[in-house]
């Protein structure tokens, strides 16, 4: 059963006089437990597609159903609630909140769920353990290395047990060794926790860890 379903999605932007159409009548299905990588040259709509699935952008036409909810017609507030319950977002530059510790950063999404403090604590500890950073819980982002920061970002994305995890070039700003650690971690999350992952990457090697590889060019999917 498809957990992500895009039907005839179009999205265009105006850039001065020019109209750019990164997504032109795109149809896509991603099934529960899939690990999908999305590749393609710059400006071909990879991030746009990711943002549409994440509900932080809206299509000009077409419909998007994620985790059983048609998100195209939800209000901004409803989309925020929907994201809190169903979606984990891994950013390229981790985007941690600098004034919060690793623990508090990971705890942020759980504050949006109806859970007791004990339940929250258990989830945060599990997420930090999953990314191997239990001993760095009290550290602030400035006290962590780039790889550790990204792992905290991943823990934050999975802590609420989302149905879908989207990752926007999660290894884009890391060195080769750290990138490999992150790839392993993403693979484990998919295999061991069964999380559905949609990952945008430029790197063919990183794309190789996915179970399904998609290439986007000029608004259309190419055969991989």
């Amino acid at each position, binding site marked *: 059963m498809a957990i992500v379903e895009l039907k005839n999605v179009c999205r265009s932007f105006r850039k001065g006089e020019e109209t750019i159409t990164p997504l032109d009548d795109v149809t896509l299905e991603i099934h529960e437990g899939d690990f999908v990588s999305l590749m393609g040259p710059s400006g071909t709509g990879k991030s746009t597609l990711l943002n549409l699935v994440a509900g932080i952008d809206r299509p000009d036409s077409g419909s998007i159903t994620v985790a059983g909810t048609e998100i195209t017609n939800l209000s*901004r507030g409803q989309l*925020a*609630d929907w994201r809190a319950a169903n979606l984990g977002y891994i950013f390229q530059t981790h*985007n941690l909140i600098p*004034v919060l510790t690793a623990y508090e950063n990971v705890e*942020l*999404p759980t*504050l949006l769920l109806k859970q007791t403090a004990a339940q929250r604590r258990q989830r945060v500890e599990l997420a930090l353990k999953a990314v191997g950073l239990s001993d760095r819980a009290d550290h602030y982002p400035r006290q962590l290395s780039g790889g550790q920061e990204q792992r905290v970002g991943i823990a934050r994305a999975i802590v609420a047990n989302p149905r879908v995890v989207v990752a926007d070039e999660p290894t884009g700003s890391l060195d080769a060794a750290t990138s490999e650690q992150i790839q392993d971690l993403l693979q484990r999350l998919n295999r061991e926790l069964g999380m559905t992952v949609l990952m945008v990457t430029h790197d063919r090697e990183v794309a190789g860890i996915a179970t399904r590889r998609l290439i986007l060019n000029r608004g259309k999917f190419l055969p991989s």
Partner: protein
Amino acid sequence: MLLPWEYSVRNLSRRPVRTGLTLMALSIVILLVFVVVGFIRGLERSLRVTGDPDVVLISSINSEANLESSAIPARTPTLIAASIDGTQSRYGVICASPEMYLGTRVTVSDREPAPGLIRAVTTAAPLVRRSVRIEEGHWPDRGEVLVGRLASAKLGMTDEAVAIGQTLTFEGQTWKISGRFTADGAAYESEIWCNLEDFQSATKRQDLSLVALLLKPSASPGEVSLFCKERMDLELRAVRETDFYAELQQHYRPVRLLAWTVVVMVAGAGIFAGLNMMYGAVAGRIREIATLQAIGYRRRAILFSLIQEGVLLSATSSLISGVIALALLNGVAVRFTMGAFTLRIDGPAILIGCGTGLLLGVFGALPPALKALRSSVAVSLKAV
């Protein structure tokens, strides 16, 4: 669901210099609000408490609100005492106080003369002016004066300059200070009281400025007004003392309006200080704010958190300013034409000062927060 409280608190320490400067700017603004509100409250109180509802002032029909220009016959108190039954009697003395009231140059020791307010009275005065209390010293004998608690402020001198035993010179005569009085903050506190006969002799005048009558609670001021109207030859007018000072308050309405305008202008400057700080704070956090939205935080939760930051800062400033105002401003004497009064940092002044401070926090944070939240999340996530 709201963001954790720690988020707002710790964000303030992210840019300590900027936060410190804003804290200082807001504190100064709120302190200025305290000064102006304390001024208004002090002035209003001084005029409000001066009036006694049982006292009627009889002055010259042409004098209006200016008692200095009033001149009534010296026999007026006797005539009134004989004609009006409603006048109170205390300790066998009829409570009718004949008075001369004059603004004149007063010299203290060898200093430059300064404008002072002289009220020449008899021993009937404290019977009518019931709030007057002699704090130290004694009632003035011939050639002596009693100074009010704020007389030094009116003269622009220190309290030591008008201490008991010091001398003052006015109307060509030297007077020795015999005592010091208070009047619960009433306007008399800025006056110098002397013996009526002495003053009449010094000014070579036989008339009076006014007669203050203390009526029995059952008596009506209308009875006194009727007497003044019937005795047209005396050219008198009677006005209840509370009405007289209410009228004076109206004279100071433009001053109060001006003061409130200053409050609004100063608060406006404070909003700009808050805006500047919050624009700076929010501009560097566009991506962070977008991240919070991507995680699932609603815009109103983020808006609330940003306002919380502004309010935290302004509340701290209000607290600092409130403490300074209470410690250093409350009770400071201010001169004005009618005498002197003290800045009054009372409950309402604290409420207005701190309320203005909190509003600065809200309105300073609102525009930058709204601006940041209006941006597209997808675009802001890529912001540098």
